[in-house]
């Protein structure tokens, strides 16, 4: 797993991130004792870290994308719509698709190296950030979608 690997390296940035992840995942372990809505919050927070590591370079800090190159993740049909289709974008990548009527020159690379839990967390983060309001994505759905391949 990338977080475990990364902690071997001395970059302040990533150490802080890993510590945060550690803290968050230990908090998640007690998830049975906390209410459902609260656990979704924790998911979104660790999703933020995954977003900053893997998605931010292309989709930018505020999810606004890069004109003509990388699409926004703000109120797009892809983000807010069918969750299985959204999971597929992360697992398989996307090319030559339109987003809100615009086309973009780059392609979305597959991120199937992320675990089911990480995919669920980052998508939940995206679905609840940048002004988006859509339901959480669950690791079981990612698992099912990955198995369908």
């Amino acid at each position: 797993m990338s977080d475990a690997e990364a902690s071997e390296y001395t970059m302040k940035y990533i150490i802080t991130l890993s510590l945060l992840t550690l803290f968050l995942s230990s908090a998640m372990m007690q998830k049975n004792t906390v209410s459902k809505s609260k656990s979704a919050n924790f998911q979104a927070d660790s999703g933020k870290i995954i977003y900053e590591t893997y998605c931010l370079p292309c989709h930018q800090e505020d999810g606004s994308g890069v004109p003509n190159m990388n699409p926004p993740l703000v109120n797009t049909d892809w983000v807010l719509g069918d969750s299985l289709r959204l999971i597929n974008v992360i697992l398989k990548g996307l090319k030559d698709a339109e987003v809100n009527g615009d086309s973009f020159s780059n392609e979305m690379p597959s991120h199937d190296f992320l675990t089911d839990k990480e995919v669920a967390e980052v998508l939940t983060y995206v679905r609840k950030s940048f002004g988006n309001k859509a339901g959480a994505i669950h690791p079981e759905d990612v698992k099912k979608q990955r198995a369908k391949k």
Partner: protein
Amino acid sequence: MRHLILSISLATLCMSFKPIDKTPNKTQKLKADADNGGITLPKGFGALVVSEGVGKARHIAVSEKGDIYVRLSKLKDGKGTIILKDTNGDGKADETKGFGNFVGTGIAIGNGYLYASSDSSVSRYPMKNGIPDESKPETIVTGLELYGEHGTKSLALDDKGHLYVTFGAPSNACQEKNRVKGSKGMMPCPILDWHGGVWQFDANKKNQKHADGFRYATGIRNIVGITWNKEQGELYAMQHGRDQLTTLYPEMYNAEQSAELPSEEFLLLKKGSDFGWPYCYHDRFQNKKILAPEYGGDTKTQGVCEGKDKPIMAFPAHWAPNALMFYTGNQFPAKYKNGAFICFHGSWNRAPLKQGGYFVAFVPFGKDGKPSGDYEVFAEGFAGGAEIKSANDAKARPMGLAQGTDGSIYITDSVKGKVWRVIYQ
């Protein structure tokens, strides 16, 4: 119209008779806008806004008559090129017309023709009385493979009847799966057979295919700014360096290192040049080409990269140099003569550091055709006041450059298509 030309010529005549006037030029009639159209320039320079917005502007060319041709990346009222005319000599466009029905980046005027590219072809129109004849298009290059990433075609014409066309690589680093973490670099990189370089065509032969062209230079990930330098008789261009060293190889590059690597390279392209992409990238801190991690690199090893061609100048990473022009006019002070202007479109992937670029640089050149000093910021402030966190924050992004017959330079913006004319007063 005739009156107008008469009075303009009379005015010019009068001016040249004024004894204090050492350099008679038309710009003395031009007045910079009070705010220079929102950009900042060195002392003595001013800018006026030719047009507030023509659409999603790309490259630009100016005809002998002073008409301005701006390529678009999105059709505007069904047109892919916008023509701006200034009929009263105040520098502002007072006539705007569309031209051609295809979008694209490249444009060049030469050989008595106006050349324009789409992402899959190059067409030209004969110039008649200084105006391209839209009814007589000729297809010069056709049937090029269409792809999104680095798919735009920039153009340059030399003085020997050749047309140069850029073929950006549809890839970041020639991985088996583009930009996918853990995917290996292909060896050898098959993309280089048809892309990742500059191809030379006959500027006067119709319906050439990609295979009719000659691979003039290779090992170049993507070029948007390219130009023929008449003084030197050489081709120059700006390479966009690769992205994502940290997302693909977090164990070797932290986010800051990835924001500062690799260099954006200023290239002098000779026939047969090989600049090393995808096997190599340029590191301006170590001042050499380094083996890419996809090909076994470890941030220091050079390997095959030792023998690759070097840039003539290296710029900070990800600034996206999108236009290159050598100044041959007489309007600007002497130090600008034969030097290079470069539009840095502006970065989107320098997080967590500040984004950079979003300005026009000047590089002084020596007689040997190499930079004679460091680059200077020439025009800045395009993006608007606040710090740019993501590319969408930028109000304007400098995209295209051209020189007018009177030695003014023109700059286009890709966000709204604002066009500035920079003059020296």
